[in-house]
């Protein structure tokens, strides 16, 4: 009994940490620009696929991973410059459509560059599970949890103790005022897209050994990451992690105790409930229309 419970909890936390990282990516971009980037999931996919492909070229694993993150970062950068920048002043609906277009475009491109098959990235430190009160803990799960924890810490340091991080925060609070004190807000947008792409790539690489990677892997991961961001309150980075864990754990317990068939529906049921009853999420700030 307890072993089952623990097992579900472990897998919930593992996958929840991934959702949280993806959600973090949404939050970073949303904060800097009020744009919801529906192509966030594609960053996850590119991260995973690129590392598999670098690895197959004979590049050693650590270097392959770094290269994959760099490639994805460039994609994020390019996305901002070519698709978001020219449409900065479009309506919300039109920006949503643009990022959806970007997401489909990137997926299509990935299918041409790579293929439609499933790929396996070897686990970072073997596949021998660690026994824990009857439950099995994959070493890769530790990598995911640890990785997520370190990234959260780094981001916190970045936003609170670096000039650039503070500039991003300032831009999110008041773009005009930020501009007036000399912050190049266009640059900030590009940087936040690049940062967010790097976050997505890291999530994709961490999860690839557990969940396999393929060109459509980003669709569900991206949407669930978005769920995480909304559950935690859009624009609140720590909220995104908490939201991710909540969604991941709920999903794992549903799969374990109720029905594995409806596992994927859990996130969306949660999201609809949250939107209806707690529109600003668990930790979000309320928005007031200005007249």
């Amino acid at each position: 009994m307890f072993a089952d419970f623990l097992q579900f909890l472990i897998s919930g936390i593992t996958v929840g940490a991934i959702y949280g990282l993806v959600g973090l990516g949404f939050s970073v971009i949303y904060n800097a620009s009020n744009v919801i980037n529906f192509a966030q999931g594609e960053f996850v996919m590119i991260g995973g696929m690129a590392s598999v492909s670098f690895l197959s070229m004979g590049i050693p694993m650590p270097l392959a991973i770094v290269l994959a993150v760099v490639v994805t970062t460039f994609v994020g950068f390019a996305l901002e410059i070519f698709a978001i920048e020219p449409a900065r002043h479009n309506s919300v609906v039109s920006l949503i459509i643009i990022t959806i277009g970007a997401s489909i475009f990137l997926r299509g491109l990935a299918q041409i560059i790579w293929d439609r098959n499933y790929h396996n990235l070897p686990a970072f430190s073997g596949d021998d599970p660690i026994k824990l009160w009857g439950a099995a803990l994959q070493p890769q799960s530790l990598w995911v949890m640890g990785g997520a924890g370190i990234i959260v810490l780094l981001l916190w340091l970045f936003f609170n103790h670096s000039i650039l991080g503070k500039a991003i925060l300032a831009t999110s609070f008041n773009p005009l005022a930020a501009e007036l004190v000399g912050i190049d807000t266009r640059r900030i947008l590009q940087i936040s897209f690049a940062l967010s792409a790097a976050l997505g790539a890291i999530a994709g690489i961490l999860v690839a050994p557990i969940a396999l990677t393929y060109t459509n892997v980003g669709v569900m991961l991206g949407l669930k990451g978005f769920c995480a961001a909304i559950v935690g309150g859009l624009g609140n980075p720590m909220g995104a992690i908490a939201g991710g864990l909540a969604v991941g754990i709920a999903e794992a317990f549903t799969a374990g105790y109720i029905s594995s068939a409806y596992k994927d529906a859990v996130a969306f049921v949660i999201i609809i409930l949250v939107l209806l009853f707690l529109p600003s999420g668990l930790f979000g700030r309320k928005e007031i229309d200005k007249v």
Partner: protein
Amino acid sequence: MMPLLKPRTGGLLSLMVILVVLPLFFRNAYHYDVAIQSGLNAIVCVGLNLLIGYTGQISLGHAGFFALGAYASAVLTDRYEFAAVGAMIIGAVAVGCLSYLIARPILKLKGHYLAMATLGLGIIISIILNQEEELTGGPDGMPVSSFSFFGWDISGNLTWYGIVALVLLFTVWLALNLVDSPVGRALRAVHGSELAASTMGVDTQRYKVLIFVFSAVLASIAGSIFAHYSGFVSPAEGEFFRSIEFVTMVVLGGMASIFGAVVGAAILTILPQLLASFHDYEMMVHGAVLMGVMIFMRRGLVPTLVHFIRGLRK
């Protein structure tokens, strides 16, 4: 003061002529098939454009309503031996009720939140269709019996083409009427400024719900017709990507343009067929079209063209 023949009436007549003349150019069953698919997509898009283009509310879940209509027809005629018309009506009413129930709370949301909620709804519908195997046949889909209407089994390409063309014309006529009426103005007012609209006495929430339900019912009816026409339904009809396809058609053809929705649906149904040998590039093209239109031709094909022609006349 109003001219006798409004430009809209002219448009409707042109569409009618095109739909009548078109079969003369069809050489084989495949041509009919593409035309019929275009027509069905167009019916969904006309409704969706009332919601997105005119009222300014996004939906990323309309394929869900299309699939519900299709499955209502499939399941009720196949498993419970309902008459096809009855199944279609029950499907439409059920989708109407469902969309009404969820529209009331969902449409209070704005922008990203509305997008996410409709998207979630569509995905939940598609997961249910995949999982309830006993009822829906699961991921493999299920066959659908032919459409019989008072003992007349509808079959043959030309007949199906005629039916879809008629339904499309009727839908376009309804949509044009609506847009030209005080109701249509209220919808556009919600898009223009929700604040001002409500101050002028428009119950904005009511109108948003109304048009959401109407567009969902249209999608459901198109789904029912599709099910009987193709003789087979699968959960792929309700997938997220299908919802995005519908939105792309609306955006490409032109927001707030009824004929734009028809043109967009036709182009994006035909284009992949022409690009069949480049099948691998289909997704890329789709994505590029979405981004390109939104960035460089924000109003979409038909309104941009109309604007251009008016400019020439002056």
